[in-house]
């Protein structure tokens, strides 16, 4: 996958345009929520970031599967980048989620938010991914072990989600409810715009990161070839 197709420049430009459009939709067009007031606007950035994190982990897992199926080294780089970006967006989910919790309920954390707890578990899991990766010597073995772990990650996502829901039955936390926004048309539009722009942004970041790593790897080979 070279930096050329589909044209990264085009994608980045579209992403920039979408972000601008979304900002307008969110702050100008979408009405303020009757219950939560202005702080409801965090929803437009928090939920798309969470969805993007899932998408990145999914991408990482798909590339991981390709690593195992084809033994292609290029997929290892792409899988790693997917997991890497997923973790970044995962942390962002936790942070924006905490800010939103503070704004809505006055606490920085609540165990009753299934999504926040799920992301905490995933954060722990994927941090371990990096520890694993950097403890193993680079080579085909590391590629395979990382790939297997990334695949376990996506299996863990639904399983953990069920576990967390089940856990709520007996942990009896102080339940904070947040009425799912009865979204007006404009709000839904703003949400979709935001979701599309953040997803596209993440994809552009992914492509840039992969290209950077690939150039790095090629240069190393080139250096070795030139110095012999």
């Amino acid at each position, binding site marked *: 996958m070279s930096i050329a197709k589909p044209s990264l420049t085009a994608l980045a430009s579209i992403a920039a345009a979408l972000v601008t459009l979304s900002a307008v939709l969110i702050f100008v067009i979408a009405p303020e929520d009757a219950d939560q*007031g*202005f*702080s409801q*606007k*965090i929803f437009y*950035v*928090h939920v798309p*970031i969470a969805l993007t994190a899932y998408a990145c982990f999914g991408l990482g897992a798909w590339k991981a599967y390709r690593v195992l199926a084809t033994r292609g080294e290029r997929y290892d780089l792409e899988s790693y980048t997917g997991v890497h970006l997923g973790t*970044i967006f995962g*942390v*962002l989910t936790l*942070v*924006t989620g905490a*800010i*939103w919790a*503070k*704004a809505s309920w006055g606490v920085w954390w609540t165990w009753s938010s299934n999504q926040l707890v799920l992301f905490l578990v995933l954060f722990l899991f994927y941090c371990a991914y990096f520890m694993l990766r950097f403890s193993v010597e680079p080579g085909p073995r590391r590629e395979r072990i990382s790939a297997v772990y990334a695949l376990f990650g996506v299996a863990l996502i639904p399983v953990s989600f069920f576990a967390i829901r089940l856990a709520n039955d007996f942990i009896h936390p102080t339940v904070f409810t947040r009425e799912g926004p009865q979204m007006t048309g404009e709000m839904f539009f703003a949400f979709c715009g935001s979701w599309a722009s953040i997803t596209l*942004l993440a994809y552009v*970041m992914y492509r*840039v*990161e992969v290209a*950077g790593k690939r*150039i*790095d790897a090629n*240069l190393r080979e*080139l*250096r070795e070839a*030139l*110095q012999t």
Partner: protein
Amino acid sequence: MSSGEKYVAAAYGVFVVVVLVWVAILAAKLSRLERETGELAQLARGRPAVGDHADG
């Protein structure tokens, strides 16, 4: 700014800052790659070009 606005600003702000930090890290990486390609170009210039037979 009301407190609601502060939180919204914080949430969006964190997102923007993280993306910018990512850009900064990539920029640093890019300068390093730029320097390395320069060094490799030097190395390559120092060698005889392929197919250059110095037989007079």
